[in-house]
Protein backbone atom coordinates (compact mmCIF):
# COMPACT_ATOMS: atom_id res chain seq x y z
CA UNK A 1 0.00 0.00 0.00
CA UNK A 2 1.21 3.50 -0.76
CA UNK A 3 1.79 6.16 1.87
CA UNK A 4 -1.30 7.60 3.52
CA UNK A 5 -2.55 10.92 2.22
CA UNK A 6 -5.79 12.83 1.89
CA UNK A 7 -6.76 10.85 -1.19
CA UNK A 8 -6.51 7.38 0.29
CA UNK A 9 -6.92 7.73 4.04
CA UNK A 10 -10.37 6.03 3.97
CA UNK A 11 -8.78 2.79 2.88
CA UNK A 12 -6.30 3.06 5.73
CA UNK A 13 -9.14 3.68 8.22
CA UNK A 14 -11.00 0.60 7.05
CA UNK A 15 -7.93 -1.63 7.02
CA UNK A 16 -7.01 -0.42 10.47
CA UNK A 17 -10.35 -1.49 11.92
CA UNK A 18 -10.26 -4.80 10.10
CA UNK A 19 -6.76 -5.41 11.39
CA UNK A 20 -5.06 -5.49 8.01
CA UNK A 21 -2.38 -2.83 8.62
CA UNK A 22 1.19 -3.57 9.48
CA UNK A 23 2.76 -1.90 12.54
CA UNK A 24 4.60 0.50 10.26
CA UNK A 25 1.37 1.44 8.49
CA UNK A 26 -0.42 1.88 11.83
CA UNK A 27 2.34 4.28 12.93
CA UNK A 28 1.96 6.18 9.65
CA UNK A 29 -1.82 6.35 10.21
CA UNK A 30 -1.41 7.75 13.73
CA UNK A 31 1.04 10.36 12.46
CA UNK A 32 -1.46 11.28 9.74
CA UNK A 33 -4.30 11.68 12.29
CA UNK A 34 -2.14 13.92 14.53
CA UNK A 35 -1.53 16.13 11.52
CA UNK A 36 -5.25 16.06 10.53
CA UNK A 37 -7.21 16.14 13.75
CA UNK A 38 -10.45 16.98 11.93
CA UNK A 39 -10.48 13.39 10.64
CA UNK A 40 -10.60 11.76 14.13
CA UNK A 41 -14.37 11.75 14.10
CA UNK A 42 -14.50 10.05 10.75
CA UNK A 43 -11.85 7.58 11.90
CA UNK A 44 -13.91 6.62 14.97
CA UNK A 45 -17.02 6.26 12.84
CA UNK A 46 -15.40 3.38 10.97
CA UNK A 47 -15.35 1.47 14.22
CA UNK A 48 -19.07 1.40 14.22
CA UNK A 49 -19.26 0.27 10.62
CA UNK A 50 -17.65 -3.06 11.46
CA UNK A 51 -20.27 -5.66 12.29
CA UNK A 52 -19.70 -7.46 15.54
CA UNK A 53 -21.04 -11.01 16.06
CA UNK A 54 -24.15 -10.91 18.13
CA UNK A 55 -23.73 -12.53 21.51
CA UNK A 56 -26.92 -14.44 21.06
CA UNK A 57 -27.49 -18.15 21.38
CA UNK A 58 -29.94 -20.39 19.57
CA UNK A 59 -32.08 -22.25 21.98
CA UNK A 60 -33.45 -24.71 19.45
CA UNK A 61 -30.32 -26.81 19.27
CA UNK A 62 -31.92 -29.90 20.71
CA UNK A 63 -34.65 -29.81 18.10
CA UNK A 64 -32.07 -29.56 15.37
CA UNK A 65 -30.06 -32.41 16.87
CA UNK A 66 -33.17 -34.55 16.84
CA UNK A 67 -33.54 -33.81 13.14
CA UNK A 68 -29.96 -34.96 12.54
CA UNK A 69 -30.38 -38.25 14.35
CA UNK A 70 -29.81 -41.25 12.08
CA UNK A 71 -33.04 -42.88 11.04
CA UNK A 72 -34.02 -46.21 12.50
CA UNK A 73 -33.49 -47.77 9.07
CA UNK A 74 -29.93 -46.48 8.95
CA UNK A 75 -29.38 -47.79 12.45
CA UNK A 76 -30.62 -51.19 11.37
CA UNK A 77 -28.22 -51.21 8.43
CA UNK A 78 -25.45 -49.99 10.70
CA UNK A 79 -26.20 -52.87 13.01
CA UNK A 80 -26.04 -55.39 10.18
CA UNK A 81 -22.78 -53.80 9.08
CA UNK A 82 -21.40 -54.00 12.61
CA UNK A 83 -20.92 -50.25 12.69
CA UNK A 84 -23.02 -49.39 15.75
CA UNK A 85 -21.46 -48.61 19.09
CA UNK A 86 -22.55 -50.78 22.00
CA UNK A 87 -24.92 -48.17 23.41
CA UNK A 88 -26.43 -47.56 19.97
CA UNK A 89 -26.99 -51.28 19.51
CA UNK A 90 -28.72 -51.50 22.89
CA UNK A 91 -30.92 -48.53 22.02
CA UNK A 92 -31.85 -50.11 18.70
CA UNK A 93 -32.72 -53.42 20.32
CA UNK A 94 -34.93 -51.63 22.81
CA UNK A 95 -36.67 -49.83 19.99
CA UNK A 96 -37.18 -53.06 18.04
CA UNK A 97 -38.55 -54.80 21.11
CA UNK A 98 -41.29 -52.22 21.22
CA UNK A 99 -41.91 -51.99 17.48
CA UNK A 100 -42.87 -55.17 15.68
CA UNK A 101 -42.92 -53.57 12.24
CA UNK A 102 -39.35 -52.32 12.55
CA UNK A 103 -38.33 -55.66 14.04
CA UNK A 104 -39.62 -57.38 10.88
CA UNK A 105 -37.65 -54.93 8.76
CA UNK A 106 -34.56 -55.59 10.82
CA UNK A 107 -35.00 -59.33 10.29
CA UNK A 108 -34.98 -58.71 6.54
CA UNK A 109 -31.85 -56.59 6.79
CA UNK A 110 -30.11 -59.36 8.63
CA UNK A 111 -30.76 -61.58 5.63
CA UNK A 112 -29.00 -59.24 3.22
CA UNK A 113 -25.55 -60.49 4.16
CA UNK A 114 -24.17 -62.51 1.26
CA UNK A 115 -22.65 -65.86 2.14
CA UNK A 116 -19.42 -66.38 0.21
CA UNK A 117 -19.70 -69.09 -2.38
CA UNK A 118 -16.78 -71.41 -2.94
CA UNK A 119 -15.27 -70.85 -6.35
CA UNK A 120 -12.04 -72.44 -7.47
CA UNK A 121 -9.80 -70.80 -10.00
CA UNK A 122 -8.83 -73.67 -12.27
CA UNK A 123 -5.63 -72.25 -13.72
CA UNK A 124 -3.46 -71.70 -10.66
CA UNK A 125 -0.68 -73.75 -12.15
CA UNK A 126 -0.45 -71.41 -15.12
CA UNK A 127 -0.13 -68.40 -12.84
CA UNK A 128 2.76 -69.69 -10.82
CA UNK A 129 6.27 -68.73 -11.61
CA UNK A 130 8.44 -71.78 -12.18
CA UNK A 131 9.63 -72.79 -8.77
CA UNK A 132 12.10 -75.03 -10.52
CA UNK A 133 13.13 -74.20 -14.03
CA UNK A 134 13.90 -77.36 -15.92
CA UNK A 135 16.81 -76.76 -18.26
CA UNK A 136 15.02 -78.19 -21.27
CA UNK A 137 17.74 -77.27 -23.66
CA UNK A 138 20.05 -79.46 -21.68
CA UNK A 139 17.91 -82.53 -21.51
CA UNK A 140 15.42 -82.20 -24.33
CA UNK A 141 17.56 -83.51 -27.11
CA UNK A 142 19.10 -86.52 -25.39
CA UNK A 143 15.83 -87.50 -23.73
CA UNK A 144 13.92 -87.09 -26.96
CA UNK A 145 16.56 -88.97 -28.86
CA UNK A 146 16.54 -91.76 -26.30
CA UNK A 147 12.75 -91.91 -26.32
CA UNK A 148 12.55 -91.94 -30.07
CA UNK A 149 15.15 -94.66 -30.37
CA UNK A 150 13.43 -96.82 -27.80
CA UNK A 151 10.07 -96.33 -29.47
CA UNK A 152 11.72 -97.20 -32.75
CA UNK A 153 12.93 -100.49 -31.34
CA UNK A 154 9.51 -101.31 -30.00
CA UNK A 155 7.88 -100.47 -33.28
CA UNK A 156 10.39 -102.07 -35.59
CA UNK A 157 11.19 -105.33 -33.86
CA UNK A 158 13.77 -106.82 -31.55
CA UNK A 159 13.29 -109.00 -28.54
CA UNK A 160 11.34 -106.33 -26.70
CA UNK A 161 8.50 -105.90 -29.17
CA UNK A 162 6.15 -108.19 -27.26
CA UNK A 163 6.03 -106.03 -24.20
CA UNK A 164 2.98 -103.94 -23.60
CA UNK A 165 2.97 -100.15 -23.80
CA UNK A 166 3.13 -99.86 -20.02
CA UNK A 167 6.47 -101.60 -19.98
CA UNK A 168 7.54 -99.53 -22.95
CA UNK A 169 6.84 -96.37 -21.00
CA UNK A 170 8.86 -97.70 -18.10
CA UNK A 171 11.74 -98.38 -20.40
CA UNK A 172 11.53 -94.94 -21.91
CA UNK A 173 11.53 -93.48 -18.44
CA UNK A 174 14.48 -95.57 -17.39
CA UNK A 175 16.46 -94.59 -20.42
CA UNK A 176 15.53 -90.96 -20.10
CA UNK A 177 16.72 -91.02 -16.50
CA UNK A 178 19.89 -92.82 -17.38
CA UNK A 179 20.77 -90.58 -20.24
CA UNK A 180 21.28 -87.29 -18.51
CA UNK A 181 24.59 -85.99 -19.73
CA UNK A 182 26.02 -85.16 -16.35
CA UNK A 183 25.17 -88.44 -14.70
CA UNK A 184 25.34 -91.06 -17.41
CA UNK A 185 27.36 -94.02 -16.37
CA UNK A 186 28.24 -95.73 -19.60
CA UNK A 187 29.37 -98.80 -17.75
CA UNK A 188 25.75 -99.70 -17.02
CA UNK A 189 24.13 -100.35 -20.37
CA UNK A 190 20.79 -101.40 -18.94
CA UNK A 191 19.26 -101.83 -22.34
CA UNK A 192 21.12 -105.00 -23.17
CA UNK A 193 18.87 -106.87 -20.81
CA UNK A 194 15.94 -108.63 -22.33
CA UNK A 195 13.27 -107.83 -19.79
CA UNK A 196 12.24 -104.64 -18.00
CA UNK A 197 12.60 -106.42 -14.68
CA UNK A 198 16.26 -107.05 -15.29
CA UNK A 199 16.76 -103.50 -16.43
CA UNK A 200 15.08 -102.18 -13.31
CA UNK A 201 17.36 -104.30 -11.15
CA UNK A 202 20.36 -102.86 -12.94
CA UNK A 203 19.00 -99.36 -12.83
CA UNK A 204 18.28 -99.56 -9.11
CA UNK A 205 21.70 -100.91 -8.46
CA UNK A 206 23.11 -98.05 -10.48
CA UNK A 207 21.14 -95.49 -8.54
CA UNK A 208 22.32 -96.92 -5.25
CA UNK A 209 25.90 -96.76 -6.48
CA UNK A 210 26.15 -100.48 -6.21
CA UNK A 211 28.09 -102.52 -8.62
CA UNK A 212 25.78 -103.44 -11.44
CA UNK A 213 25.58 -107.01 -12.60
CA UNK A 214 27.88 -107.75 -15.43
CA UNK A 215 26.41 -107.86 -18.87
CA UNK A 216 26.10 -111.39 -20.14
CA UNK A 217 28.50 -111.82 -22.99
CA UNK A 218 25.93 -113.57 -25.15
CA UNK A 219 23.75 -110.46 -25.21
CA UNK A 220 26.44 -108.10 -26.40
CA UNK A 221 26.87 -107.26 -29.99
CA UNK A 222 29.56 -109.16 -31.84
CA UNK A 223 32.71 -106.97 -31.76
CA UNK A 224 33.05 -107.18 -35.52
CA UNK A 225 29.93 -105.15 -36.04
CA UNK A 226 31.39 -102.08 -34.40
CA UNK A 227 34.46 -101.65 -36.51
CA UNK A 228 33.19 -98.30 -37.66
CA UNK A 229 30.99 -95.91 -35.82
CA UNK A 230 27.38 -95.96 -36.90
CA UNK A 231 25.77 -92.65 -37.87
CA UNK A 232 23.27 -93.15 -35.06
CA UNK A 233 26.13 -93.10 -32.61
CA UNK A 234 27.49 -90.05 -34.30
CA UNK A 235 24.16 -88.32 -33.96
CA UNK A 236 23.98 -89.17 -30.30
CA UNK A 237 27.54 -88.01 -29.89
CA UNK A 238 26.71 -84.72 -31.59
CA UNK A 239 23.63 -84.37 -29.47
CA UNK A 240 25.66 -85.08 -26.37
CA UNK A 241 28.19 -82.40 -27.24
CA UNK A 242 25.45 -80.02 -28.22
CA UNK A 243 23.77 -80.52 -24.87
CA UNK A 244 26.99 -80.04 -22.95
CA UNK A 245 27.84 -76.84 -24.83
CA UNK A 246 24.69 -75.67 -26.58
CA UNK A 247 26.15 -72.45 -27.90
CA UNK A 248 29.26 -74.00 -29.33
CA UNK A 249 29.33 -75.33 -32.83
CA UNK A 250 28.92 -79.11 -32.67
CA UNK A 251 31.51 -81.20 -34.39
CA UNK A 252 30.82 -84.47 -36.12
CA UNK A 253 33.86 -86.65 -35.90
CA UNK A 254 34.99 -88.72 -38.79
CA UNK A 255 33.58 -92.22 -38.20
CA UNK A 256 36.76 -93.88 -39.43
CA UNK A 257 39.30 -91.93 -37.45
CA UNK A 258 37.14 -91.59 -34.32
CA UNK A 259 35.47 -94.95 -33.66
CA UNK A 260 33.44 -95.21 -30.49
CA UNK A 261 34.57 -98.00 -28.19
CA UNK A 262 31.93 -100.50 -27.35
CA UNK A 263 32.56 -100.44 -23.60
CA UNK A 264 31.79 -96.70 -23.52
CA UNK A 265 28.49 -96.92 -25.34
CA UNK A 266 25.50 -95.47 -23.64
CA UNK A 267 22.23 -97.42 -23.49
CA UNK A 268 20.97 -95.33 -26.36
CA UNK A 269 24.02 -96.13 -28.38
CA UNK A 270 23.47 -99.79 -27.68
CA UNK A 271 19.96 -99.48 -29.02
CA UNK A 272 21.20 -97.77 -32.11
CA UNK A 273 23.59 -100.60 -32.84
CA UNK A 274 20.91 -103.22 -32.40
CA UNK A 275 18.33 -101.71 -34.72
CA UNK A 276 18.07 -102.23 -38.42
CA UNK A 277 21.56 -101.89 -39.84
CA UNK A 278 20.22 -100.31 -43.00
CA UNK A 279 20.02 -97.03 -41.18
CA UNK A 280 23.66 -97.26 -40.27
CA UNK A 281 24.82 -96.15 -43.66
CA UNK A 282 26.50 -92.82 -43.63
CA UNK A 283 27.32 -90.60 -46.52
CA UNK A 284 30.86 -89.31 -46.54
CA UNK A 285 29.64 -85.81 -47.19
CA UNK A 286 27.28 -85.99 -44.24
CA UNK A 287 30.03 -85.87 -41.68
CA UNK A 288 31.27 -82.61 -43.01
CA UNK A 289 27.90 -80.93 -43.49
CA UNK A 290 26.17 -78.86 -40.84
CA UNK A 291 26.13 -80.92 -37.64
CA UNK A 292 22.59 -80.06 -36.60
CA UNK A 293 21.37 -80.99 -40.04
CA UNK A 294 23.22 -84.29 -39.75
CA UNK A 295 21.52 -84.86 -36.44
CA UNK A 296 18.12 -84.05 -37.92
CA UNK A 297 18.68 -86.38 -40.83
CA UNK A 298 19.82 -89.17 -38.57
CA UNK A 299 16.82 -88.87 -36.28
CA UNK A 300 14.48 -88.73 -39.23
CA UNK A 301 16.03 -91.85 -40.67
CA UNK A 302 15.94 -93.69 -37.36
CA UNK A 303 12.42 -92.79 -36.38
CA UNK A 304 10.69 -92.20 -39.69
CA UNK A 305 9.41 -88.87 -38.38
CA UNK A 306 10.25 -85.32 -39.34
CA UNK A 307 12.94 -83.88 -37.10
CA UNK A 308 13.95 -80.29 -36.67
CA UNK A 309 16.54 -78.81 -34.35
CA UNK A 310 17.03 -75.07 -34.29
CA UNK A 311 19.21 -72.79 -32.31
CA UNK A 312 19.06 -69.01 -32.44
CA UNK A 313 20.91 -66.39 -30.52
CA UNK A 314 20.21 -62.68 -30.59
CA UNK A 315 21.54 -59.90 -28.42
CA UNK A 316 18.66 -60.26 -26.01
CA UNK A 317 17.77 -63.92 -26.01
CA UNK A 318 18.78 -67.47 -26.79
CA UNK A 319 16.36 -70.00 -28.16
CA UNK A 320 16.61 -73.72 -28.69
CA UNK A 321 13.94 -75.95 -30.11
CA UNK A 322 13.61 -79.63 -30.86
CA UNK A 323 10.87 -81.17 -32.91
CA UNK A 324 10.37 -84.82 -33.72
CA UNK A 325 7.08 -85.75 -35.34
CA UNK A 326 4.41 -84.25 -33.11
CA UNK A 327 6.78 -83.97 -30.19
CA UNK A 328 8.09 -80.46 -29.75
CA UNK A 329 10.12 -78.68 -27.11
CA UNK A 330 11.41 -75.16 -27.19
CA UNK A 331 13.01 -72.88 -24.71
CA UNK A 332 13.84 -69.21 -24.79
CA UNK A 333 16.23 -67.69 -22.34
CA UNK A 334 17.23 -64.07 -21.92
CA UNK A 335 20.90 -63.45 -22.51
Amino acid at each position, binding site marked *: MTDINKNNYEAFFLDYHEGHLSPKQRDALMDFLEQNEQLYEEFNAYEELILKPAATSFDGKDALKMAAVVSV*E*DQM*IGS*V*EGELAANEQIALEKHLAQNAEDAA*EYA*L*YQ*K*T*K*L*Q*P*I*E*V*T*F*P*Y*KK*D*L*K*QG*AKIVPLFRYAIPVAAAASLVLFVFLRGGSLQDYQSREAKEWVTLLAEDWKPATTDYSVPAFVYDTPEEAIVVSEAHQKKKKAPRIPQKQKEAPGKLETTSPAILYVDVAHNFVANPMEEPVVKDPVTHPVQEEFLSPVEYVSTKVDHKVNKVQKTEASSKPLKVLENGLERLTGNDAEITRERTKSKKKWSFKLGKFEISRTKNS
Partner: protein
Amino acid sequence: MTRREYNQSVDLYSDHLFRFILSNLKDEDKAKDIVQESYVKLWAKHNEVSYDKVKSWLFSTGYRTMIDGLRREKRQAAFSEVDFNAHSTTEQYSDLQQVLHEAVNQLPEDQKSVVLLRDYEGYSYKEIADITGLSESQVKVYIFRARKHLKNYIGSMEAVL
Protein backbone atom coordinates in the same frame (compact mmCIF):
# COMPACT_ATOMS: atom_id res chain seq x y z
CA MET B 1 7.83 -60.18 -2.40
CA THR B 2 9.71 -63.36 -3.20
CA ARG B 3 8.77 -65.89 -5.83
CA ARG B 4 7.63 -68.23 -3.09
CA GLU B 5 5.37 -65.54 -1.65
CA TYR B 6 4.07 -64.78 -5.11
CA ASN B 7 3.20 -68.44 -5.67
CA GLN B 8 1.62 -68.53 -2.23
CA SER B 9 -0.54 -65.58 -3.21
CA VAL B 10 -1.72 -67.62 -6.19
CA ASP B 11 -2.82 -70.40 -3.86
CA LEU B 12 -4.39 -68.05 -1.34
CA TYR B 13 -6.07 -65.36 -3.38
CA SER B 14 -6.69 -66.44 -6.97
CA ASP B 15 -9.94 -68.19 -5.99
CA HIS B 16 -11.15 -65.06 -4.18
CA LEU B 17 -10.23 -62.76 -7.02
CA PHE B 18 -11.79 -65.10 -9.56
CA ARG B 19 -15.00 -65.26 -7.52
CA PHE B 20 -15.13 -61.51 -7.18
CA ILE B 21 -14.61 -60.84 -10.87
CA LEU B 22 -16.86 -63.71 -11.94
CA SER B 23 -19.64 -62.46 -9.66
CA ASN B 24 -19.38 -59.05 -11.24
CA LEU B 25 -18.92 -59.96 -14.89
CA LYS B 26 -20.82 -63.21 -15.23
CA ASP B 27 -18.27 -64.20 -17.84
CA GLU B 28 -15.88 -67.01 -17.00
CA ASP B 29 -13.42 -66.34 -19.79
CA LYS B 30 -13.23 -62.66 -18.99
CA ALA B 31 -12.86 -63.40 -15.31
CA LYS B 32 -10.09 -65.88 -16.01
CA ASP B 33 -8.30 -63.37 -18.23
CA ILE B 34 -8.55 -60.63 -15.62
CA VAL B 35 -7.19 -62.90 -12.90
CA GLN B 36 -4.31 -63.91 -15.14
CA GLU B 37 -3.65 -60.33 -16.15
CA SER B 38 -3.66 -59.24 -12.52
CA TYR B 39 -1.11 -61.87 -11.60
CA VAL B 40 1.05 -61.05 -14.59
CA LYS B 41 1.08 -57.44 -13.41
CA LEU B 42 1.81 -58.58 -9.89
CA TRP B 43 4.78 -60.62 -10.99
CA ALA B 44 6.07 -57.69 -13.01
CA LYS B 45 5.96 -55.59 -9.84
CA HIS B 46 6.67 -58.28 -7.29
CA ASN B 47 9.75 -56.44 -6.11
CA GLU B 48 7.66 -53.39 -5.26
CA VAL B 49 4.60 -55.05 -3.71
CA SER B 50 4.95 -56.24 -0.14
CA TYR B 51 3.41 -59.55 0.75
CA ASP B 52 1.11 -58.15 3.43
CA LYS B 53 -0.51 -55.84 0.85
CA VAL B 54 -0.73 -58.33 -1.96
CA LYS B 55 -4.40 -59.26 -1.56
CA SER B 56 -5.69 -55.72 -1.73
CA TRP B 57 -3.20 -55.00 -4.52
CA LEU B 58 -4.62 -57.89 -6.53
CA PHE B 59 -8.21 -56.86 -5.90
CA SER B 60 -7.45 -53.27 -6.74
CA THR B 61 -5.73 -54.25 -9.98
CA GLY B 62 -8.42 -56.77 -10.86
CA TYR B 63 -11.17 -54.26 -10.11
CA ARG B 64 -9.61 -51.54 -12.25
CA THR B 65 -9.03 -53.97 -15.09
CA MET B 66 -12.62 -55.12 -14.85
CA ILE B 67 -14.03 -51.60 -14.79
CA ASP B 68 -11.86 -50.56 -17.71
CA GLY B 69 -13.11 -53.57 -19.63
CA LEU B 70 -16.72 -52.84 -18.76
CA ARG B 71 -16.39 -49.26 -19.85
CA ARG B 72 -14.89 -50.38 -23.12
CA GLU B 73 -17.38 -53.02 -23.92
CA LYS B 74 -20.49 -51.68 -22.20
CA ARG B 75 -21.93 -55.05 -21.94
CA GLN B 76 -23.05 -57.50 -19.31
CA ALA B 77 -23.91 -61.10 -19.75
CA ALA B 78 -26.99 -62.52 -18.12
CA PHE B 79 -26.59 -64.06 -14.72
CA SER B 80 -28.12 -67.26 -15.96
CA GLU B 81 -25.23 -67.83 -18.33
CA VAL B 82 -22.82 -68.37 -15.48
CA ASP B 83 -22.32 -71.91 -14.42
CA PHE B 84 -21.04 -71.46 -10.91
CA ASN B 85 -21.33 -75.17 -10.31
CA ALA B 86 -18.54 -75.77 -12.79
CA HIS B 87 -16.16 -74.14 -10.33
CA SER B 88 -17.86 -75.02 -7.10
CA THR B 89 -16.79 -77.56 -4.62
CA THR B 90 -19.98 -77.59 -2.62
CA GLU B 91 -23.67 -77.00 -3.10
CA GLN B 92 -23.73 -73.26 -3.42
CA TYR B 93 -27.02 -71.62 -2.68
CA SER B 94 -29.76 -71.96 -0.21
CA ASP B 95 -33.06 -70.58 -1.49
CA LEU B 96 -32.43 -67.31 0.32
CA GLN B 97 -28.93 -66.98 -1.04
CA GLN B 98 -30.22 -67.71 -4.53
CA VAL B 99 -32.70 -64.88 -4.19
CA LEU B 100 -30.06 -62.66 -2.68
CA HIS B 101 -27.60 -63.22 -5.50
CA GLU B 102 -30.31 -62.47 -8.02
CA ALA B 103 -30.90 -59.23 -6.16
CA VAL B 104 -27.19 -58.43 -6.13
CA ASN B 105 -27.14 -58.89 -9.87
CA GLN B 106 -29.65 -56.07 -10.19
CA LEU B 107 -27.47 -53.61 -8.33
CA PRO B 108 -25.54 -50.90 -10.17
CA GLU B 109 -21.92 -51.87 -10.80
CA ASP B 110 -20.47 -49.72 -8.03
CA GLN B 111 -22.90 -50.97 -5.43
CA LYS B 112 -22.45 -54.56 -6.51
CA SER B 113 -18.67 -54.39 -6.29
CA VAL B 114 -18.57 -52.81 -2.86
CA VAL B 115 -21.12 -55.15 -1.36
CA LEU B 116 -19.28 -58.17 -2.78
CA LEU B 117 -16.01 -56.91 -1.37
CA ARG B 118 -17.72 -56.29 1.93
CA ASP B 119 -19.54 -59.61 2.29
CA TYR B 120 -17.31 -62.01 0.38
CA GLU B 121 -13.95 -60.67 1.45
CA GLY B 122 -14.85 -58.88 4.67
CA TYR B 123 -13.05 -55.69 3.71
CA SER B 124 -13.53 -52.52 5.75
CA TYR B 125 -14.93 -49.35 4.19
CA LYS B 126 -11.43 -47.93 4.09
CA GLU B 127 -10.00 -50.99 2.33
CA ILE B 128 -12.84 -51.00 -0.18
CA ALA B 129 -12.22 -47.33 -0.81
CA ASP B 130 -8.56 -48.08 -1.47
CA ILE B 131 -9.42 -50.89 -3.86
CA THR B 132 -12.12 -49.11 -5.80
CA GLY B 133 -10.75 -45.59 -5.71
CA LEU B 134 -14.01 -44.33 -4.18
CA SER B 135 -14.09 -42.19 -1.06
CA GLU B 136 -14.86 -43.92 2.20
CA SER B 137 -18.15 -42.07 2.52
CA GLN B 138 -19.11 -43.04 -1.01
CA VAL B 139 -18.43 -46.66 -0.16
CA LYS B 140 -20.62 -46.38 2.90
CA VAL B 141 -23.43 -44.76 0.95
CA TYR B 142 -23.25 -47.44 -1.77
CA ILE B 143 -23.36 -50.22 0.80
CA PHE B 144 -26.29 -48.66 2.61
CA ARG B 145 -28.17 -48.23 -0.67
CA ALA B 146 -27.33 -51.77 -1.67
CA ARG B 147 -28.61 -53.14 1.64
CA LYS B 148 -31.87 -51.27 1.23
CA HIS B 149 -32.29 -52.67 -2.26
CA LEU B 150 -31.49 -56.20 -1.13
CA LYS B 151 -33.88 -55.90 1.80
CA ASN B 152 -36.68 -54.67 -0.40
CA TYR B 153 -36.03 -57.44 -2.93
CA ILE B 154 -36.05 -60.15 -0.29
CA GLY B 155 -39.15 -58.64 1.27
CA SER B 156 -40.99 -58.61 -2.04
CA MET B 157 -39.98 -62.20 -2.78
CA GLU B 158 -41.09 -63.36 0.66
CA ALA B 159 -44.38 -61.58 0.14
CA VAL B 160 -44.86 -63.40 -3.16
CA LEU B 161 -43.95 -66.76 -1.68
